[in-house]
């Protein structure tokens, strides 16, 4: 897959992260999944190993500065230098969601720590290796809340808007000739635990299956022409436009 042999996926024990781990392992990548809760993470890794894939679990809290280098190094120790980093872990903050003016300062800080600072630090920890090997991609999982001003989505939306812009600036600093690409991906509304926590009344039948979304994201990563570095890609648009490519 584009010569990529290894992937590190944060928030990899369930939902979209779990589906991405499976989709990449099926394509022969050696995968490390990271998350805070070790039990769920190890169960997910064990399930994928059962299918004959190389998948390892590394426990880490992305909001904790001191956890970043240990995560990056353990991942490389287990599968080799990381070619593909998917910053998928995020926090919504406490649910039910509240108006921005009612949001505790600490909850906004926590959303920024996990959704912006964590991906920034982890990207910084693996980007140099990608650069000297002229091979790598970083995918930051975003949201339509980064673009639309939805009431009560203040902490989450602000953090995702910052993540989108971080992606654009990083791509602007790294020409395509470096072989390193970065994008932000809006996966759309999916049937995941996070979605149920935010909007418990939505009929799950109306939501996309994360496995289907993961397949589309994989097709984006492998398409350097239509997915230029720095782009903000929406799965819903990709699905309609490039259905045959998937």
């Amino acid at each position, binding site marked *: 897959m584009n010569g990529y042999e290894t992937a590190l996926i944060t928030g990899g024990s369930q939902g979209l992260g779990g589906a991405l781990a499976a989709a990449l392992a099926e394509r022969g990548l050696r995968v490390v999944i990271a998350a805070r809760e070790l039990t769920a993470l190890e169960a997910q890794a064990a399930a994928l190993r059962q299918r004959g894939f190389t998948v390892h679990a590394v426990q880490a809290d992305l909001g904790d500065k001191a956890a970043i280098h240990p995560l990056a190094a353990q991942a490389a120790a287990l599968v*080799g230098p990381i070619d593909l980093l998917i910053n998928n872990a995020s926090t919504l903050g406490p649910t039910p969601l509240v108006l921005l003016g009612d949001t505790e300062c600490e909850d906004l800080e926590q959303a920024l720590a996990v959704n912006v600072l964590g991906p920034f630090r982890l990207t910084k920890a693996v980007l*140099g290796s990608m*650069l000297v090997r002229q091979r790598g991609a970083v995918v930051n999982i975003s949201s339509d809340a980064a673009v639309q001003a939805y009431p009560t989505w203040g902490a989450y939306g602000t953090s995702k808007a910052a993540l989108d812009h971080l992606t654009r600036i990083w791509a602007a600093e790294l020409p395509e000739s470096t072989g390193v690409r970065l994008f932000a991906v809006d996966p759309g509304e999916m049937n995941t635990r996070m979605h149920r926590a935010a909007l418990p009344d939505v009929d799950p039948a109306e939501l996309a299956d994360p496995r289907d979304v993961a397949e589309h994201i994989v097709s984006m990563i492998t398409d350097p022409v239509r997915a230029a570095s720095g782009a903000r890609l929406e799965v819903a648009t990709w699905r309609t436009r490039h259905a045959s490519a998937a």
Partner: protein
Amino acid sequence: MHPQLERRETRLLVVDPRHERIAGRSMRNLPGLLRRGDLLVVNDAATLPASLRGRTAYGEPIEVRLLGPERDGAFSAVLFGRGDHRTRTEDRPAPPALETGERLAFGPQLTAAVVQRSQLSARLVELRFDQRGEALWRALYAWGKPVQYAYRPEPLPLWSVQTAYAARPWASEMPSAGRPLNLQILLGLAARGVELATITHAAGLSATGDPALDRALPLPERYDLPEHSVQAIERTRRAGGRVIAVGTSVVRALEGAFQRGDGALHAGEAVTDLRITPQHALRVVDGLLTGIHSPEESHFELLGAFVAEGLLQQSHAYAREHAYEPHEHGDECLILAGSLPQPSAATPERAAA
């Protein structure tokens, strides 16, 4: 960044053995000192949290310093006695003599047995951990600390001993020659048309406090040379570019690989026991970017393969006179033939002489 460590400009001492010149520059100038078609080879080993404190089965305190890479739960390791890095290595009490089979505990989920003792010194052993894979790495990163020495007593965080491009944790000490290579410099090199390639080399300890072991340094060290890098080196040499090693460990690995391959480089993992002396004829590497070394260090001997004795002494005197910082977060030295312009015979200084 660590305020004291990083917020100063790294100076670059440039030594040109062809034109017999020495000049003071900054690391910022590095891309401008190289040419399109040159190749910089970096050691991308991450620095292990290689120092573990534990106890023997008899309750005696012990420190082990791991030598990478890990193989199936086993590491080579150097043993240290009571105390920590704040005591000078050579003043540390000797560790208890360990028998083969003796067990060590470093934490609730980190235990090991001595599986082999070296002929070289009772302090050099092979340890096999009871944990494997994910569980071993989790425990090593929970309990291990970077190797440190007495000149810097404050604990160094793990991130502060990594290069920007660190990947697999193989090194016992930071491959520090590459530490000032930040993204600005790496992108500047690429823009200049200087290629980059990697080797992973398990750089070992610079001192153990055991005279027998210290005399034998550097010990045989494992490296992994990717196929991509073999091709880049061959392409560079065919096109007349220069291969510049970042760090003495890269020189040792590449020259060792060439010798081992009987005049050719082969991709893959191997061990180098090559000791590079002034008599060594360099076959792969043309230039070296390294830290500031002094004559009492083992690395200094290797520099003699690049620079004649007289110019080496002058470089050392220049570095001292201009207070170049010698430690792993200090200044740098580029040794490269043709890196500085040839002094013109018409210059007044020359005419006067």
